[in-house]
């Protein structure tokens, strides 16, 4: 199949655009999570989005009597439980002697376990539109509708807009939290805003990528982008580009391969981008470091030898 044929197909176009938007938004906003060293909390949020997405499905089907898979309901539910899980983990770490990594594991298994129970309830019951509901686990980009695409693009754009509007505050809070507080910025408010944008970036991917692998979309592009750039705007932009292009290409590959969920393929593509960046970026990478070291060693050896012959 060539590219013209690929983009001529409505489903393929939706898959490509949908995953690219997710990759772009998650990559750009993930940069802040990366720089604040809070990458793993994204994993907790993503897993914990499952019960929220399923509760939204149940509410829509049983109470409202509408399509259970509508994107807006999913986003609202997933943001709610995702945020709750992060607050829960932080509360455990702040109020007990349990440390944050254990607290995150407790929160993750608790919320995800609840989600798996709900999944069982839904698949045992007779709810309209429940077929393929476990796509929320690993994602299925081929069920993205135009309405979904519009909603996730709008919500993702809103998150990116928030980032641009509060760019100065986010930057200051990320790199110098003390100065930011001294200058009178409200730390709690900025943290909440920043965290909300990251949660949004995570949950818009639930339908197409699934909750289990969403962490890769938030962590991998920033880690790759960091190897190529030294400025924050450069990093956010490059991370977004890596996320967007990697996701689009991964989606294309998964369609070419046939019966393969798009999420895992995209994750592997993103990982490949990261590996290349880590090993061979010209500025900071494993190979560059090794070359520098070898050169420095050689220079030192020569200097010592020269000193020896002078005497």
């Amino acid at each position: 199949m060539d590219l013209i044929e690929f983009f001529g197909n409505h489903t393929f176009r939706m898959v490509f655009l949908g995953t690219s938007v997710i990759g772009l938004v998650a990559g750009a906003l993930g940069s802040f999570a990366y720089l604040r060293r809070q990458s793993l909390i994204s994993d907790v949020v993503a897993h914990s989005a499952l019960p929220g997405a399923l509760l939204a499905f149940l509410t829509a089907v049983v109470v409202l009597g509408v399509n259970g898979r509508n994107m807006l309901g999913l986003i609202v539910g997933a943001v709610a439980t995702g945020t709750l899980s992060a607050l829960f983990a932080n509360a455990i770490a702040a109020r007990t002697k349990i440390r944050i990594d254990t607290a995150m594991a407790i929160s993750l298994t608790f919320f995800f376990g609840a989600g798996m129970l709900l999944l069982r309830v839904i698949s045992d019951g007779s709810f309209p539109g429940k077929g393929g509901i476990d796509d929320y686990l690993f994602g299925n980009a081929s069920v993205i509708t135009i309405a979904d695409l519009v909603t996730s693009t709008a919500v993702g754009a809103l998150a990116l807009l928030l980032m641009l509007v509060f760019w100065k505050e986010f930057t200051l809070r990320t790199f110098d939290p003390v100065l930011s507080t001294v200058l009178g910025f409200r730390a709690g408010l900025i943290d909440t805003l920043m965290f909300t944008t990251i949660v949004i970036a995570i949950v818009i991917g639930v339908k197409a990528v699934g909750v289990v692998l969403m962490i890769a979309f938030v962590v991998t592009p920033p880690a790759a982008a960091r190897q190529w750039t030294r400025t924050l705007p450069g990093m956010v932009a490059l991370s977004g580009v890596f996320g967007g292009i990697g996701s689009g290409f991964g989606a294309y590959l998964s369609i070419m391969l046939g019966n393969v969920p798009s999420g895992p393929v995209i994750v592997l593509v993103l990982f490949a981008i990261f590996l290349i960046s880590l090993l061979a970026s010209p500025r900071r990478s494993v190979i560059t470091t090794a070359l520098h070291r070898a050169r420095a060693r050689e220079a030192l050896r020569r200097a010592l030898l020269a000193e020896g012959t002078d005497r």
Partner: protein
Amino acid sequence: MSFILGTSLLAVVTALACALPGAFVVLRRNAMLVEGIAHAVLPGIVVGYALTHDLNSPWLIVGAALAGLLVVLGNEWLIRTGLVTGDAPQGLLFPALFAAGVIFITLDFSHVHLHTHVVLVGDLNLAAFHQLSVNGVSIGPRYLYVMLAVLAVNVAFITIFYPKLKVTTFDHQFATVLGMRTRLLNTSFMFLVSVTVVTAFHAAGVILVISLLVVPAAIAHLISRRLSVMLVLTALFAVVGALAGFWIAYALNAATSASMAVFFGLLFIAVAVIDALATRVRRYRRAGHAGIKGLLVRPPHEEAERLDGSSPAPSPQAAE
């Protein structure tokens, strides 16, 4: 042995086998690394199954455990390069490995009949399906004996290396100064955790394995001040949780491992809340007051601490 007895025994043994090394995982702050291991063993299991066609084969267990160890060693390597900051190294490797595992499964690469669903939550009843019998008398599921063996190895490892584990866990620098090979010990311990994860995977799935490893130990950590006490309490909570989760799931016809994960989460919340209340009452009594009012009124010295501008959170010494 009846099916229900065999299966509930299996639940208890699996919980114990995971929870005991879990106590050290919690104390060594490796909980999220275990989350990585639990995801990363998947491709190892699928490839191992393609080669051995037996989920309980020792070759498969060791091979898949090596895939889990890849996350531990890769994490250390990424940190050493100095190119990736914060907790990101832990989040980079395991999604890629897990993704590879999922792709292997969906491509039906090895004809392993694993539903991706089962990968996440396991299936205790399916795991217990293959029964062993001696002279025509059923002696329980075959898998029970595999888990018993892992439990025995874990108990043996913890018993033999107890002093070393203790020193490296609580004072890593001191252990290094003493000349202990801390990295070797850490890697072997993580390998053992990985082996445990792989064997328990069948019954518990990725998510419950993490829950079993971390949460009983965390609950015990809340209310114990000595390592030996913590280990005993961890085992106790693991058994209670396994039985409760099993019977709740049985009564509600729900997935066993998901019920256990939720039950452990609720148990953690209950113990944390009770412990906090008890601490508050104790402190209030010591301050010269008595009665249930201590639950409702903030102790006076804590107010004073606040006015000093110091942290309102009670320090462990203050709680004592």
